[in-house]
Each structure stands twice: as C-alpha cells, then as structure tokens.
C-alpha cells in the first residue's frame, strides 16, 4: 500500500468589518480619518477577542504541544490573512506570538494569498491582485519569520488564469477545492498540474473528509456521530491516493464547534491515532507537492471555489447588488493610482475583502443560513448591508475625487499614472 500523506491546512481569517453608513453620511464631515469613518473597530475588537479566546490561543497551544511531542512527525500548513494578522497585532499581540512560535519549529508551512482576502484575482487587470499577494508575503515574513512557497487564493477561488498568474509569481504549489464536475472520474488525492502551467503543482481539497470535521463533527443527527480521532484515522488510512488534503476553517476548533463538543480533544489525539497506521504520515502542502509528479493536467476555464453547493463565485457575485459593489470597486483602481495616497489605498483594499460581498448574498435558505451565521450584522439582511456598503463606496469615491482635485490644484499632474508606492513594493517584495 502506498504511503498517504495527510495535508492539514487551516484557514485563519477575520475581515475588518464595516460600520453602518447612512445615505446622509455620504460627503459629510472632512473624512480625515477613514479608518474610524468606515470601519467598526469596536465590533472588530469584540469578534477578534472572542475568536482569540475560544479558538486561536487554545488551538495554537494544542498544535504547539503536538509539534513538540511528535518530533518532526507532525506537520501542517496555515493560511492566515493579512487582515487577521493586522488585527492580531493591534488587539492581541500574544496571538501573533503564538503563531510565530508554531512557525519557528520549522514544521509549519505558511501559504501566501491576497493580504485582504479579496476578489482581486477576478479583476481584468491582475496587477492589484499581485500587489496584494506581495503585501501578504512581506507581512508573513515580517511577523511570522517564514517565507511562503505555496499559495491558496481567497476561499480557494481558482481558474487556469489564476493558476498561471500565481505560477508567474514564483509559487511551487496552489490549492483549491476538489470539485466533482472538474475532477470527473479522478480523485482529489493526487497531485495535479494546472492547465497552461509548467512548474506549479495543484492540490485539491478532499471535501468529504474535510467537511466530516469542519461541518459535521458536532451534528448529533449524523450517523457517524460522535466522531473520534481513532475512527477518523481509520478512514484516512483506508483512503486511496498520495495525499489527503484536509483544508478547514481554523475556527472549526472552538468556534464553529464549541470546546464541549470534544473538537479540541479530537485534534489533540489525531496525530497519535494516525501514527497507529503504517501508511499515514503528515506533510505540509509544499512538501507534498514536491514529493509527487503530477498525475494529470486539470483544466478549469471558469472559476471554482470551496463555497456553497455551487462551488463557484456565486457566494460573492451571485446577484446584482453584489456585482454592482464589485464592479464599483474594480472601477476605482485607476483613480486610486492617480490619487496615490497611503490612507486611501489602505481603506480601498480593506473594502475589497470578500466578506463584505458575502453579507449581500440573497441565495436560498440553506446557504442563507450559513451566510447569516457568519454575518456580524444579525439584525439586518442583504439589502441593508448593501445600502451601508454602497453608501461607503459612494463616500469613498468622493474622498478619492477630492484628493485628486486637491493634488492637481496644488501641483502639476505627474506624467505617469503608475504609482510610486506599487513600484517600491514590487521591488521590495519580490519573492525569493
């Protein structure tokens, strides 16, 4: 029997949540502090503290113990967004410290992505996407002390075009959802090559085994409940293939499933139970990708993701109000370059976080429940969220316009639209 590698990958993310913004707020005040104007930092701090106490700190502690006890035999990958790290630094520096300690073992692989968990990979001009990826790379090296070699895009959004762009940035592996309609008869448990790429390898999420933990772990109506580490390891051992990619929300541990469901104990016992099976070992994404040659080429002409039943981008761009916000934001890019102001850039990029669009979803009941679960605006629906978001975008446009007007009034126009900031970043953040 071939040795199957278990690739655990945890997605760690918090958006910078928006304030409620009235139509009458558009164009009011002087807009000196855009952070306070658009973002509800009280709410952000509240959610961050909750997640830190219920999930990040206790789960990091368990993982640290597992790394220490298992002496190189336990390894995993993390994909942490820039918006999360930024908030951790601001609200709970000990969270950054504990992630840094995990990375210091040398057995944790951190994946790159867009700093802002944005949909910039879907813009027709990919330079904003590339800028956000470089920013993320820079932040991870700076805060966590490791240099990412593999990539996962926002919500595992993926297409041939995105894979090619990511290969162009020098990454060795990219991960996405093992979508049935793409795989066909093929198994997600092998290493693949994206269509049109030469070097980068593609790993696909085993959604069945991932969701057994992520979604179903605490469902008492599930026939496999209660799921023990022992039973789960047996399933992993019986899974044919080279790699079993288990990608899940980090908040699975302690937030989506509370501590009293036994989820943390499950995690704490998983390595020792897995090691009882001779054919199982743990591996990071980058190591697994390096271990195998691609079994086949996978072609994904239009975007897939790991979200909802459709596994496409309809979670964020499924209706008119979502697409309206998305195209407003994309359309602002040339103006941002022209205004070239650090505060405007930062607000602009935070507005691109995909969560803001997810809160505008009007999909049918089952998905709606999932979206409501994640929405911080409990008392309001997608239309309210749209109004507030679009009011912010409208106000932001005014801010950008007045910046441009002021700049051109005080100094002659620069000959080029290309912003100095991006050029510097590009030079600074080239991947090793």
């Amino acid at each position: 029997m071939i040795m199957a590698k278990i690739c655990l990958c945890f997605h760690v993310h918090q958006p910078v949540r928006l304030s409620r913004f009235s139509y009458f707020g558009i164009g009011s005040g002087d807009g000196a502090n855009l952070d306070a104007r658009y973002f509800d930092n009280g709410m952000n701090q509240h959610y961050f503290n909750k997640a830190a106490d219920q999930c990040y700190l206790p789960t990091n502690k368990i993982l640290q113990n597992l790394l220490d006890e298992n002496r190189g035999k336990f390894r995993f990958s993390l994909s942490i967004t820039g918006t999360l790290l930024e908030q951790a630094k601001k609200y709970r520096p000990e969270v950054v410290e504990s992630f840094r300690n995990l990375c210091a073992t040398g057995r944790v692989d951190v994946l790159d992505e867009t700093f802002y968990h944005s949909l910039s990979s879907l813009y027709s001009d990919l330079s904003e996407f590339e800028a956000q990826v470089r920013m993320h790379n820079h932040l991870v090296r700076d805060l966590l002390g490791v240099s990412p070699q593999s990539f996962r895009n926002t919500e595992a959004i993926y297409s041939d075009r995105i894979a090619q762009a990511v290969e162009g940035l020098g990454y060795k592996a990219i991960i996405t959802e093992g979508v049935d309609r793409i795989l066909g008869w093929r198994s997600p448990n092998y290493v693949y090559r994206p269509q049109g790429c030469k070097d980068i390898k593609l790993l696909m999420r085993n959604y069945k085994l991932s969701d057994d933990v992520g979604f179903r772990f605490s469902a008492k109506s599930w026939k496999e409940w209660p799921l023990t580490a022992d039973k789960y390891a047996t399933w992993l051992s019986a899974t044919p293939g080279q790699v079993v990619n288990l990608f899940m929300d980090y908040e699975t541990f302690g937030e989506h499933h509370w501590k009293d469901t036994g989820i943390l104990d499950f995690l704490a016992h998983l390595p020792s139970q897995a090691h009882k099976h001779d054919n199982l070992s743990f591996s990071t994404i980058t190591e697994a990708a390096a271990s195998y040659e691609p079994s086949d080429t996978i072609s994904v002409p239009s975007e897939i993701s790991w979200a909802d039943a459709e596994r496409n981008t309809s979670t964020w761009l499924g209706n008119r109000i979502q697409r309206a916000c998305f195209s407003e934001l994309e359309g602002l890019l040339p103006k941002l370059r022209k205004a070239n102001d650090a505060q405007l850039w930062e607000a602009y990029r935070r507005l691109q976080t995909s969560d803001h669009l997810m809160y505008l979803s009007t999909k049918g009941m089952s998905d709606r429940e999932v979206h409501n679960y994640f929405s911080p605006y409990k008392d309001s629906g997608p239309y309210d969220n749209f109004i507030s978001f679009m009011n912010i975008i409208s106000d932001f446009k005014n801010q950008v316009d007045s910046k441009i007007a002021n700049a051109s009034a005080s100094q002659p126009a620069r000959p080029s639209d290309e912003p100095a900031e991006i050029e510097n970043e590009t030079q600074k953040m080239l991947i090793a």
Partner: protein
Amino acid sequence: MLGWEFPPFASGGLGTHCFELTRALSALGVEIDFFMPKTSYDIQRPWLNVFQTDWGLFKPGEMQVDILPITYSGYGGASTQLQFNARKLAELAKSPGQSKSYDLGFFEAVGVYNHLAALLVEKKHSQKPYDVVHVHDWISAKAGIQISARTGLPLVSTVHSTEYDRTADLWPFDWILGVEKDMVCNSDQVITVSRRSAQLLLDRFGASPRKVSVIYNAIDSSKFPKHKEALRDSNGKAAKVVLYHGRLSVQKGVEFFLRAAQKVLSRDRSVKFLISGKGDLLPRLVEMAFDLGISENVMFLGYVSDDQLKRILCTSDVLVLPSVSEPFGIVALESMASGTPTIVSKTSGVSERVKNCLKVDFWDTDEMASKILSILSYRSLYEEMRENSITETASITWDEVARQTIDVYQKAMRSRFAAKAAMAMF
C-alpha cells in the same frame, strides 16, 4: 363563518381576507355558510353560501324577544350612547318576516347583526349540523360566543387587529376591549395574523398560549400587474415616486412618513410622495406637509379603490408601511407582488413574514429616508428587490393559509371532544 363584509361590499382587508380564505378552504373540501349583515349587493359565490342576515329571514313567531342583546350595555365604563335601545329592538322583533333597515347607529347595528346571525346559525345547525363556528374580529364575536354556548359547537376566532392596535394604544375603547377579551376567552382556538399580535393576546388579554395559532395573511400575486410605468409631471419629466397607502390614522405612522419625506427631499428635490387613503388624520397631515415645507411634493389622493391601487403601484418606485402598530399590513404584500421595493416598520406583522423588503423602526425617520434614497439611487438594489419581491410573494398563497386554518379547526374540534369526554367521566 361569520364576518362583516365580503367583496364587492368591503371597506377594508377583512372582506378580502374572507373572500380568499373561503375560496381556498372550499377548494380543500370545506363547506362554508357565510353570514354577514344585509347589503344591497349580490354577493353569492359558487364556493360558499352567503347569508345576508336580515329580519326577513325569520318567520313570525321564530324570534324570541327575551334574548335580545340588552346585556350588551352591561360593560362598565361604556358611554351611554352605546346603551342599546332595548325597547326599539323589541319593537322591531315583534314583526319579523320583512326586511328592515339597519339604520340604528353603528354599535346598535353590530348588536342587531350579531343577534340575528346567532339565531339564524342555530336554526340552520338544527337542520344540518355544523362542525365549527369561525368568527372574524370583535364585530362578529358576540354571535360566535352565543352560538358556541348554546350549541356546544367549537369556536374559532381570527383576530385581525385589536382595539389596542387600532388606536395605537392611546385611547382604546373599553367596551370593544371587553368584547375582544370575551371572544378570546370563549374561543377554543384563536388565530392571529402575526407573532406580535399573538403576543399581545397573551400579554393583554391573558390568552393561553396553547390555543393561539399564528397564520399569516397571503396574497394572490396574479392579480397584481408587474410592469412599471413612469409618472410624468406637466413637462413630461418622469418623477420618482414614493407611496403610502392605508388609513390616515395615528396607528399607521403617516406622520413619520412625512418627516422622512422631508429628509429625502433635502437630498433630492424631484421625488414625489403619494398618500392614498382617507382617515381622521387627513387635515393634520395636510397642515404638517405645509409646515415641513414639502407640500409641493406631497399629493393626497383620498380614497383609492383596489383597482386604482394596482395602477398606482405600477407608477411607484417605493412603498413605505410606517405603522406604529400593525397586526399584519397586507398592503406590503400587494406592493411586493407588484414588484415595488417595499419598506416596512419592524412593528408590523408582515415584517415577520417576508424577507425581501427593508425593515425600519417607525420612529427612525433618518433611517427611513436613507433607505428610500438608497432604493431610488442604486439601480441594482431596486432591480434586485423588485425581482425577489415578485418571486417571494408568488409563494405566499391562500392555499397555505387554508391548510393551516383546517389544522386549527381540527384542533378546536379535538379540544371540544376531549372536554366532553372529561365531563362524561363525572
């Protein structure tokens, strides 16, 4: 079933409700005799027997003078004008067999109707037994209570609104409250049109939660045209239109609508506000529009028929239901069925039922104005709400209401049966 009105004789939502409910019940195999006061309209429909209750339906000697509703005046605190003229009624009762005018004053007419209806139902019940008596609101409650007491038939009542709602709890009429409380206490099952209305019965009338069921109103979406046409001013320029439709009373929160209108106009002077409906608040609202400096942009349409409303909805971009206290608010369903983006107050029953509308606190006129402006400014929002409103209301059917109502009938029958069985043990 006992009601007060039935189309084409209808002044409010109660008539439409009875029309749609009986039709849907009949389609599910329920046979219905419907009792209402005598009118000059021909109301007979193929799915039910309508009895326009009248002295003329009785033969001489059938009417007992001693059970005339003299006790109706027995509620403490009721003003003397409510005291029924017992002698006058007794006089009328001596000569049945011929139609007589109900021209007795509103409360006396209600008393006479209830009394006659109760007698008529008892008479029919003795010929061919009924299974359930169903009454709507206080206006037919007394008859239901009497029939149930004298025949042992289970009583189901639907509370469309209470006196607390109709007066925004400012000056409720004790006498009517008394009838409503009587109705709730004496019913085997009570139907309310929203959770908030059910809660009110529990809190204010001491109703037992076990006998209260919530059945939301529905809509026949096919009756509402979905197209839009622009309302043009004298220069042919299309105007954006925000509509209020309903009674002009304190309960309906029309004043908040006007305050929001002023705020909308501070941003966009071209918006027109239509106020359709009549009511005792009209003079105050006209004055208020003038004082707010917006009378040029506010049009009072007066009474508007059902057909006219459908046409007005076609020209409207937003409908607002700003009610302070609203057991349901069926106009929101009508608006959504016509594809008009709709804003409802959180204190309306309909806000519990529908998803594809915007919800505001009636007093938060800043928020109300912000939402109106957003719908008018953001085309994507307008289109998305329009499409989803039409889809959602298409699935809110009277058939579903009828099914739930039959469940309540069965509950009422079972509770009577169980009570009888318990009595038999002693």
